[in-house]
């Protein structure tokens, strides 16, 4: 190596590091990543305590990674590179031939234990509340669309979770596998999001009819309205994959005469009521478009339909119910929605206080094993 070339190479390397250093220093920090749909780590506070424990340094490294200049492009570059070297997955998401992104389902030992506890919480809960309690489990695309996965791709069978639930519970329980599998050639799941589409939710609604005691309306009753054709969901975010087409979002049920109220508590513990809508179109301009259904996450929501002669339903649920609720509106006077991740009061008391006629615990299989239902015990 000549001295001149060595100088060039050294300067080139130093310039590259300096470029990275400067770009990171100059890029303003972001609170939230739209693309990844999560809050980003912020610069940690420099305190003697955190420095001595090493927490400051660990947080600082995470902060550098989260706020790295051009982060979204780097994440996408890694997914591209993985595909280039022959991988058929990235960050636990499989690349399927038709452009679907499907998250692998795994059942860890912790999940298995949580499942067993959840089943116990449910039976205890059903025994202590008045009125019927039923349980429904929704398999996700990883189960219904298993044929789309790359050949031999590891994927735990969600059917095993459902059959264990059905066998163990004394509370009546139902799996929606057959109802969805019968329509697996239709667009019943989003290709880039973990939820079912409105069409998938319709088939769920149709299957729940005999269980909840209503006569489901035929699909031909509704007029399909496409509200967005540029929906990139959560699986798109976590996969890093940027080469797939966006999803289309549809609604079927008109929202006339329906009111939605979200109930929370302020910092002092006083109840706060926030009006919501069945379809909050303002979310369609944001990344998290699925939150259009009922305005996204809420601890307790109440949907009033104006059909005052109909019974009152309580759904203890995850976000799959957000797109299901529109279909249920003709059959109930009120639909109450409790999300146990946020609702920390007594659900049994709530049922008694609000004259609930029947309760449905409705979860997708992954959420059912990943979130604890311990609060049912209150």
């Amino acid at each position, binding site marked *: 190596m000549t*001295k001149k070339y*060595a100088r060039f190479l050294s300067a080139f390397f130093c310039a590259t*590091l*300096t470029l990275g250093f400067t770009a990171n220093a100059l890029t303003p920090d972001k609170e939230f990543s739209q693309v990844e749909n999560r809050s980003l780590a912020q610069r940690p506070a420099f305190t003697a305590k955190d*420095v001595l424990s090493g927490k400051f*340094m660990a947080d600082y490294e995470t902060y*550098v990674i989260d706020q790295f200049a051009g982060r979204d492009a780097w994440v996408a570059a*890694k997914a591209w590179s993985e595909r280039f070297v022959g991988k058929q997955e990235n960050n636990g998401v499989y690349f399927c031939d038709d452009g679907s992104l499907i998250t692998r389902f795994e059942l860890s030992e912790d999940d298995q234990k949580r499942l067993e506890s959840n089943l116990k919480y449910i039976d205890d809960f059903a025994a202590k509340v008045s009125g019927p309690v039923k349980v429904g489990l929704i398999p996700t695309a990883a189960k219904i669309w298993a044929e789309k996965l790359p050949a*031999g791709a*590891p994927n735990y069978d969600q059917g095993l979770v459902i059959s264990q639930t059905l066998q163990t519970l004394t509370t009546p329980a139902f799996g929606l596998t057959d109802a969805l599998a019968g329509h697996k050639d239709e667009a019943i799941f989003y290709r880039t999001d973990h939820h079912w589409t409105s069409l998938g939710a319709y088939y769920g609604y149709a299957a729940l009819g005999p269980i909840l005691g209503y006569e489901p309306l035929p699909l031909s009753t509704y007029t399909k309205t496409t509200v967005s054709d540029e929906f990139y969901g959560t699986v798109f975010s976590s996969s890093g994959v940027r080469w797939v087409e966006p999803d289309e979002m549809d609604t079927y049920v008109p929202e006339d005469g329906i009111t939605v109220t979200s109930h929370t508590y302020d910092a002092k513990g006083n109840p706060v009521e926030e009006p919501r809508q069945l379809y909050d179109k303002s979310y369609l301009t944001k990344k998290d478009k699925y939150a259009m259904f009922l305005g996204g996450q809420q601890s307790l929501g109440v949907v009033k339909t104006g059909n005052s002669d109909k019974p009152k339903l309580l759904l203890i649920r995850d976000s799959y119910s957000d797109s299901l609720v529109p279909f249920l509106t003709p059959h109930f006077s009120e639909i109450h929605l409790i999300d146990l991740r946020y609702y920390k009061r007594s659900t049994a008391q709530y049922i008694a206080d609000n004259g609930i006629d029947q309760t449905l615990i409705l979860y997708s299989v992954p959420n059912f094993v990943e979130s604890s239902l311990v609060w049912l015990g209150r």
Partner: protein
Amino acid sequence: MVFSTPFFLFTYFPIVLLLHYVAPLKYRNALLLVVNLIFYGWKKPIYILIMFASIGIDYVHGILVEKAKGEDNDRRARRYVIQSAIFNLALLGFFKYWDFIARSLAAVGLGFMPVLGLELPIGISFYTFQTMSYTIDVYRGDAGAQRNIVNFGTFVTLFPQLIAGPILKYKDLADQIDERSYPVERFAAGVQTFTVGLAKKVLLANNLGALWDVYKAMPLTELTTGGAWLGALAFAFQLYFDFSGYSDMAVGLGQMLGFEFLGNFNYPYTARSISEFWRRWHISLSSWFRDYLYIPLGGSRVGKGRLIFNLMVVWAATGIWHGANWNFLLWGGCYGVLLVLEKLVWGKALDRLPAFLQRIYTLFFVLVLWVVFAIEDFSHLLPYLSAMFGAAQGGFTDGALFYHLRSYLPMLLLALCGATPGVKLLWARLPEKLRQILCPLLILAGLALSTAYLVDGTYNPFLYFQF
């Protein structure tokens, strides 16, 4: 702190380089000492105190040894060497082996030692060996005692090789610590070595490590014979590229700061015998044990019985150095037995075999023993080994095996090329002009791809917390 993080690459290291080159020559060691300590204490600052104790005690002992020797008092000099070795071994013993001994005793009903659950100070196995070499080198007259405590501290804590080697012997570094030059050719060579090391660690090792993790975590009921071998192969590549990548990064960073360290790996998977494998794998450790344990025990110029004893002692020590657990002892012990057999039984016959059979023989044992190395829990290790030899509960192959083979085939082939000197030879045969154009492009590609994988860093383990 570890090298393969965006923080190291784009914050810590640029700052260190800048400060280092603006600092006047005579303050560079002092500056290095400070940044070394920051690097060391990054995860657990309290452990910097261990570093101070280590520096102080070995510094004093070096001078005492030299003084005793100057007065021709060999007994006293020897006593100081032993004292310093005891201190270093006690430090290592306390932090690394206390819990292991306590648990092992408790398992046979002697639970008088409490399990402390101390976090292992990062790199302790590396730097205690390094400081031990210092007093021994001074005693043997291979190096003079270091009078300047800042220079000595810099030697002990030198950040490029502090946490994962290579293990520097004081005699090899003594001159460079006191005074070194900074030719730009060395810096440029460092740039190349460092980037190659980074790419080995982030692009090859982490990738294949993910494959090993699949098989390591797989329930035994699903494990197939083919899968068990694929897993072992993935681990062999992961460990090699991780470890040699770290060594390359250390050598490269050292060069950029004006040091020349000896290399640590020389294509070990091309070895044609187990003894050759160990002349090519983690060279700084094998040569440490050779210089400071095997030769003092008498080396190989002894009777058969003594030779077997010497080899087994060295290999038990090598095994347990890699981690405080029985599987590491078993792993080292197996190598001891293999080396005894090569020296005394089948070495000559092995020499007459065709090269490809010699390689298959070597890789077979190396692969099987990596499994012993990688799985600490014997209730998992033994079924995994049986699965490799046909008694797999999941049969010979399954769909998942083909999925993983298909997904990882390009990476495995890349790794295979990288583990042989082929790439290097090819590079050397390219025309000079082409190399000059390709070199900066490859450096840029290596840095950019590594950055992409680190920024999306879902999988970036540091394998040597055990060591």
